C-alpha cells in the first residue's frame, strides 16, 4: 500500500531535498518531488521545505526563495490547515514568508556549525510531534550558519505563552543551558509552530536522523507522527 503523500520542494540551491524524500520513503510515506516553479503540491497531504542554501542564501537565508511561485501553494496549504514542515533553510523560508513568526539570524559563534545535538520536545500539539511526549529528548544533527532564532519581546512572549515552542536545544538528559545551544537561539528555541500548530519550522535535521546506518534516529518520531496525522488516502 502506498502511504500518505508528502511533497518535498526543490528550490535552486536546496540540498537536503533528496534526504527528505528518502526519509519519507523510509517511514512508509509516498514522496512527491515538487519544483519551485510548480503552482501546486501534486496533490500531497503534507509538504516539507527542505534544508540547503536556496539561492545561495544571498541577502538572508530564505529571502529570495519565499518569492518562488510554489510558495503561493504552500501558503494555501497552510491556510487550509495542511501540515507544513520547514527544516533548516525551510524554516528560514517560512519565517521570511511570514508563515512563522520571528527570524533566524547569524549564529552567535559567527560560524557554520555541523554537530549532533539533543532537542527536547515541548508540545505534542503538532502533526509532527503527536506521537511524542513533552519532555522527550531526541538526538538530531544541526548544520547551519544562520540558525539563531530571534523575535521581538511581544512575539516571543506570545509564542511561549501559547505553547508554540516545539523543540528546545538541551543536554542528553533534557536540561537547558548555553553549552547545549549551538547557535545562541533565544530561549534555546530549536523549533516553533504557527498559532494553529500545523506549520512547524525547526533548525535541526530530522530527515538526517531516520537511518541508523548514517546517524542518530531522533527524527523518526516526527515522520511517524506525520504519517498518522495524514493517513494514506484521506
Amino acid at each position, binding site marked *: 500500500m502506498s502511504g500518505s503523500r508528502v511533497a518535498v520542494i526543490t528550490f535552486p540551491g536546496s540540498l537536503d531535498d533528496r534526504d527528505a524524500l528518502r526519509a519519507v520513503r523510509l517511514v512508509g510515506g509516498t514522496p512527491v518531488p515538487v519544483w519551485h516553479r510548480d503552482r501546486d503540491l501534486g496533490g500531497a497531504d503534507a509538504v516539507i521545505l527542505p534544508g540547503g542554501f536556496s539561492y545561495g542564501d544571498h541577502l538572508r537565508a530564505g529571502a529570495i526563495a519565499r518569492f518562488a511561485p510554489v510558495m503561493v501553494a504552500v501558503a494555501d496549504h497552510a491556510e487550509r490547515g495542511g501540515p507544513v514542515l520547514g527544516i533548516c533553510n525551510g524554516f528560514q523560508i517560512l519565517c521570511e514568508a511570514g508563515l512563522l513568526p520571528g527570524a533566524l539570524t*547569524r549564529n*552567535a559563534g559567527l560560524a557554520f556549525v555541523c554537530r549532533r545535538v539533543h532537542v527536547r520536545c515541548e508540545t505534542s500539539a503538532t502533526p509532527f510531534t503527536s506521537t511524542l511526549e513533552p519532555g522527550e529528548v531526541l538526538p538530531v544533527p544541526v548544520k547551519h550558519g544562520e540558525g539563531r532564532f*530571534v*523575535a521581538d519581546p511581544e512575539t516571543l512572549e506570545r509564542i511561549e505563552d501559547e505553547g508554540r515552542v516545539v523543540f528546545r536545544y538541551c543536554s542528553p538528559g533534557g536540561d537547558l543551558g548555553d553549552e547545549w545551544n549551538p547557535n545562541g537561539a533565544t530561549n534555546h528555541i530549536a523549533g516553533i509552530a504557527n498559532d494553529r500548530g500545523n506549520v512547524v519550522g525547526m533548525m535541526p535535521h530530522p530527515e538526517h536522523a531516520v537511518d541508523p546506518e548514517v546517524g542518530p534516529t531522533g527524527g523518526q518520531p516526527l515522520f511517524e507522527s506525520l504519517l498518522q496525522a495524514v493517513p494514506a488516502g484521506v
Partner: protein
Amino acid sequence: MKRRFEIVVMLKPGMADPQGRAVEDALPTMGWSGVTDVRTGKHVELTVEAESEEAARALVEQVAGRLLSNPVIEEYRVLAAEEVG
C-alpha cells in the same frame, strides 16, 4: 531616465550584532583603541530605469522593504540617488 541608488540595511537598534561585536573585540588586539558601538550591515547599489524620480523611488522602497531587508530584524534607508544618464 536612469538613476543609481544606494541602500543601507542595518539590524534594528535593539538587535544583537555578533559580527559588530567581533570587530570591536578584534580592534584592541590589532593595537587600535577608542573604537566603540560597531554595527555591521549591508550596502546595496542598484540602477533603476523609470519615467520619473518618484516612480524610481517607489520601486526602490518596494525592493528595499520587501527583499533587501527583513522588517522583523532590520531597517533600511535609501541614500540620495544620482542620475546616471
